[in-house]
Structure formats: C-alpha cells, structure tokens
C-alpha cells in the first residue's frame, strides 16, 4: 500500500503567487496571440458550409465501405479540403418508408467555409462583389457548392467507371445522383450564445453559494480560478489546432463543473484552519500554504483517476471523441495547477487588497468571548 502525504510539508506557494500567476498567464497569452493570428480551428458544426450528397444506385456488388474510404482519402488528401470534410453515410428512404431501399447507397459530405482551391485557401463565407458577375451578392459558398458538386460528380464518375466497368456508368446514366446545398450556421451561433449566457448565470449562482457557505473573498477567488481554467483550456485547444465543435461547449461545461470541486476542497480547508483557535496568530500565507499541503494528495489522486478515464477515451475514441477528450485533458491539468498554485494564493492576495489580512474568524470568536466575559465581570 502506498502512503503519501504532503500535509506536514512546509510549502511557500502563497509567497510566490505572482510567479505562478505569470506562468499561467503566459500560457493563456500565447494561445490568444496565436488565435488572433491564425484563428481557432472552428469545426463544421459551427462554421457555415455546404453539403453534397452522393447517391450510388443499382451497381452490382457495390462495396460501400471501400467507396467511403477511397472517397474520404480523395477529399482530404488529393483534393486538400484540409480536414474540413465530414461525411455521413445514409441510406435512401422515401418519406413513408424508413427501411433501406435496395441498391441505393447515399453518402453525405459536409464542407466547412474554408477550402483549398489551386493551392490557395479561400473563405467561402465571403460574398461575390463583382457586379458584372452572375453571382453578384451571393456568397462564395453558394457558388462553390455547385463547383464542388461538379468536381465530385466527375470524380465519382471516374471512380465508378474504373472500379465497376461492367455497370457501364456514364454521365447520363441512372447510376449516381449528386445534390448540393448550402448550410447556414446562425442557429448554431444562437445555441452558443444561449450556452454562454447559461454558463455566466451558472457561475454567478455558484458564486452566491460559495459566498454564502464560505466568504465572499473565497467566492471571488474560486470564480477567478475557474475563469483561469477555462482560458487555459481555450488557449491550448487553439494552440493544438483541435477542431472546435459542439462537443467543445460540453467540454468547457464539464471542466467548469469539475474544477470548481478542487477549488472548493482547498477553500474548505482554509475555512477550517481559519476557524481553529490554534491558528489564531498565523498569517494568511501560512493558512493558505497549510491548506494546499493538506489537500495536495487528494488533488493529485483525483486528477489522476479522472485523467485515466479521459486518456483512455481519447485512445479508444473516434475523431469526435478525441476532439472532446483533448480539451478536457487540458482543462484537468489547468484545474489541478490552479487549485494548487492559484486558488488559495489569490485568496491571500485579495484579502491583502481588501485589508482583511490576518483577521482570523477564530479570533473574532475569542474576542466575542472576551467581550462577553468582560461585560459579565463588570
């Protein structure tokens, strides 16, 4: 059995608050500078885009999975859609019939707003401003959807002719059909806005609870720690170019819900030590350092166990799970760092700022007792 405890170690973490804060802020700053230059890797769910549907019909021995694989390879590799391609495979159904129609396989490809064309990256959300053009006023997306459709059409034709010569596929034959649509993203943006508002309200509600159960300085410190965790998470997600989809919102909320726990555990110890009569002459720094030491083994173990599950999820997961797991891993590490190096030191600093330093709640009690004793004596 392993026994490790840091309870009796004498840390000097609170005294080096600015150093630890600086380290964190540098990580955040690097990420945000990177974001300003290159932008976040916004996934298809959030960006507007186009969808192209390919239906392959009545070809004997048609191998769906190899078509899917070859086509994906073509889209991402040769065609250089730069990772902004997703496909959903579908089976054709009529409005009344939900079972698979014999001989028809439908694939859907989704494109983001950025694609590479002749080696240049173009932003499809831009509108055509050439007044002489037929497409004046339309977004490039609407124009390119057609273009992409034609291109895919040619590629599919060539592929089918090559792989299934006996089917004698021609451009006019009934063997394949291609549809293109544009997709808007404003509903998704609305969802994000609601999520932001809800997160803000949730943070305020947590702040109220912490102020009520602890002190208002602890409440503010906890919320600042929380914001730090989320900012680090956003920064690292940007730096590692991880696509931001709706799972990212879930990841952010997960970290908010999770990392507040670590902070609360530290402040719980601060609250306890603060009320101990034997601590009445100790400084805020000592209280904070002792609290960090007493909770350190818990922080390490808990972070470790959660990391295990998330890392396994990333290892076994599909791409979309990985997109979720990496930000969580960043958030967990940030949460462990901040609950050790920032939460309690921020509390010490804020108390200095609001001239509460060194005032022990145990002292208040003993003062009251003394005062009560004095009045009864008199």
């Amino acid at each position, binding site marked *: 059995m392993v026994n490790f405890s840091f309870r009796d170690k004498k840390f000097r973490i609170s005294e080096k608050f600015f150093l630890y804060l600086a380290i964190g802020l540098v990580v955040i700053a690097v990420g945000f500078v990177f974001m300003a230059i290159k932008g976040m890797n916004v996934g298809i769910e959030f960006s507007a885009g186009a969808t192209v549907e390919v239906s392959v019909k009545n070809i004997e021995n048609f191998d769906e999975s190899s078509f899917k694989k070859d086509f994906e390879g073509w889209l991402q590799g040769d065609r250089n859609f730069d990772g902004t391609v997703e496909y959903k495979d*579908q*089976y054709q159904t009529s409005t009344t019939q939900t079972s698979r129609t014999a001989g028809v396989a439908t694939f859907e490809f989704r494109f983001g707003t950025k694609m590479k064309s002749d080696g240049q990256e173009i932003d499809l959300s831009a509108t055509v401003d050439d007044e002489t053009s037929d497409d004046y006023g339309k977004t490039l997306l609407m124009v390119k959807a057609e273009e992409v459709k034609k291109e895919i059409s040619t590629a599919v034709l060539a592929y089918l002719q090559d792989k299934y010569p006996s089917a004698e596929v021609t451009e006019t034959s009934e063997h394949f059909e291609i549809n293109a649509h544009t997709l808007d993203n404003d509903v998704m943006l609305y969802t994000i806005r609601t999520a932001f*508002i809800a997160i803000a309200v949730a943070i305020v509600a947590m702040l109220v609870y912490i102020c009520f159960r602890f002190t208002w300085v602890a409440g503010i410190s906890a919320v600042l720690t929380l914001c730090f965790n989320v900012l680090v998470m956003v920064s690292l997600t940007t730096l590692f170019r991880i696509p931001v989809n709706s799972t990212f919102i879930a990841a952010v909320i997960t970290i908010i819900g999770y990392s507040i726990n670590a902070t609360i555990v530290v402040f719980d110890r601060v609250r306890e030590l603060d009320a101990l009569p034997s601590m009445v002459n100790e400084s805020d720094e000592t209280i904070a350092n002792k609290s960090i030491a007493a909770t350190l083994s818990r922080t390490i173990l808990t972070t470790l166990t959660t990391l295990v599950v998330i890392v396994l*999820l990333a290892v076994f997961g599909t791409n979309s*799970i990985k997109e979720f797991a990496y930000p969580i891993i960043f958030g967990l590490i940030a949460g462990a760092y901040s609950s050790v190096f920032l939460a309690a030191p921020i509390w010490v600093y804020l108390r200095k700022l609001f001239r509460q330093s060194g005032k022990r709640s145990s002292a208040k009690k003993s003062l009251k007792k003394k005062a009560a004793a004095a009045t009864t004596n008199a």
Partner: protein
Amino acid sequence: MRKTKSIVILTILAVLIVVLGTASFASFPIPNSIRDYNSIFSQISKGIDLEGGYYAVLTPEVSEEEADKLDLDSVIQTIRTRLDDKGYTEATITKQDVTSLRVEIPNVDNADEVLEILGSQGKLEFRDSSGTVWLTGDDVEKATKGYDQDGKPCVNLEFTANGQKKFANATETISSSSSDNYLYIYLGDTLVSQPQCKETINSRTASITGLETVEEAENIAAVISSGALSVSFVIGETRQISATLGEGVVNNALIAAGIGLLVIFAILIIFYGGMGVAASVALAVYVILYTIVLALFPWVQLTFPGIAGIILSIGMAVDANVVIFERIKEEYASGKTCTAAIRAGYKRAFITVFDSNVTTVIAAIVLWIFCSGSIQGFAITLFLGVLVSMFTSVVLTRWIMKLFRPLTKNEEKFYGLVRKEATNG
C-alpha cells in the same frame, strides 16, 4: 455470529453486482427463443449523434420573393419549442439554401408524424357554421393534453382574459343561432372537433374533445402552445441518417469507461487498501444504479455531452471517496483510534463533499433551465449522477466498511492507516 452475517451480506452484494452488472451492459440471445435480451444500457434512449435518426427538409409554401422576406428565426424558435415539447431536445435545426430548414431528429417510431407536426402551420380557429372566425390560437394562453369525463384523450385550453370574452361571445351567438348550434374547431385546414353549443359558456378553460388517440391530443397541444407559424411548410426529402458522430462511439466510450474503472479500482486499492476495496464496490454499485436511473427516467436522452456528464460524475464519485479517506488517514495520524478516525473522517469530510457537490448541482440546474438541446441533456445526466454518487460514495462506502469490520483482525493495517506519517519538512 456477526462475522457470518457480514460474509452473507457481502456475498449477496457481490452476487447482485455481478447479476445486475451483466443485466446492465450485456446483450445476448435468449436460449430457446428467437428474441434477444437487451441490456439496460441499450434501453437508454440515445440522441441523433450516437444512434442516428432522420433528417427532413422543410420548405415554406410561398413564392420565392415572399420566402426571402420570411422571418425564419422566429419559425425556428417555434419549431424548436414543438420539438422540445415532444421530448426531442436533441433535434437540430439548420437553415439550408437560405430559405429552407433542415431538421434532424433522433430515431423514432413515427418519424413522419413528428415531421408533420413540425411543418404544420398550427393556426387554431374557432368558427361557426357560416365560417366566421370567433377565436384564434392567439387567444389561448396554454394548451395541455388531458382526459375528458369518459377517460378519452382531449386537449385542455386555457384562454387569455380577452380569449375568455371572445369565447363567451362565440358560445352566446352560436347557441342562440337558429341554423346550426355547432362550434367548429379548425387546426389549419383540418376540422379537429365540432362540439354542440347549448348555452353561453363564460369560462377561462375549455377542452377539445372527440380525439382519437393520446398522441393526437399531445400533438395538437404542442402545436397550439408553441404558437402558429407565419406560413406552412412542406416536407421535401426525408432520409435516415447514421450517427452523426460516427459509428461505434458508444461502444468505444464503454470500453474506455470499463478499462478506466478497472484502473481506478487498482489506484484506490493501492492507495487506500481496505477502504479502497469498499470504494471500488460502491463505485461498481454506482455505475449500475446510475445506468438503471438513466434508463428509467423518460426525459433522459443520452448524447455525447451526456456521456461527458457521466464521466464527470464518475470522477466526482471517486473524488468524494478520496476526500473522505484522506481525512480518515489524517484523523488517525493525529492520534485517534481507528473507529473514531473513521467516524470523524466521514463527519468532517461530508461537509467538504457536500459543498463541492452542491456547487456542481447548482451549475447543472442552471444549465438544465436555461439551455435546450444536448447541453440540457448534459445537465440532466450530471444532476442525476451527482445525486446517485453522493449516496454511493458517502452512505454505501461507510456501510461496506462496517461490514468489513468483523472480518478483519487488524483494522488499522487493513485500511492502511499509519500513526506518524513520513515528514520531510
């Protein structure tokens, strides 16, 4: 005697975990039957991202110029309300080709019917025999599904103050009319009900009776309360789609969670010995109990963010035990007896666990209220998970540790408690 009792209870607990654990996660063919046993986990309803579903394109039934001016955002809001009312919080709506809507809904038995409701304009009208409109959906404040005196499904309407007046006027005129005493209730172009009016009814409430099925009542109520759409929509293409996150997401997540749990068991036992064993048992119970809770609650629809909520609550269940055990170690190191240390540890650590979990529950409730769609799903799974984990990690571990007591010769050693811990400072 106590020893035998402990052994018996622990054996029963172990058997229960194995049996229920299998029932929760293993699906297998039933011998001598053509049917399969479906695990409890597979019966949790799953969202479009995990299990696929349908998509439909809704196109407004208007000319192109009119379509350009159409306020699609308010239409989206209305359709969103209808979907949420029907429990499809996971459905997504996207604008397609500027004027159409693309709606994706999870796997349902009656996809076509659901889609009909979405596109239906939902204009409610109370008419008399001459076709005069007396009351519209705007005069209705609330519409809910209910049952009439005969136990048949109906829709209960609650009028606005203005609506009440209009309804009184309508019933007065119709009941005194010489030709035909019927009130015709139309939803769009369909006549849903035609009750006879014999007297003036001055009431805040009314009900639409004569409906065939509960489903019908539910749908009409959902359409009326979400409000009417400015135009009606036709359903273009409908297709079945596979899981939007790709195949095998659920299985991969399950494998990861399974291995993760084993590693957590190992970590807990390495660091906390006998206490770790108790926590591992409690954690196994937690996973099973939570699966059953998720399958039982009808409004739970598991999506990927929901799985995140589950993982988070596993983490918090472990955290609660780590906090408690650390405290017990600390209390023992400070000189208390083993029994006293455990009692003091649970008592003191409970405050910590309570505060940290309540904070998370507060966040979950806020998200539940303010958000729709998959984030709401996340909030629900997180909320339920934290409640279940509070029980297993605080109540259950303590009970299991009590059961261990008669079986151990040296409790301190079994729980890995040390008087004086190594100090380097």
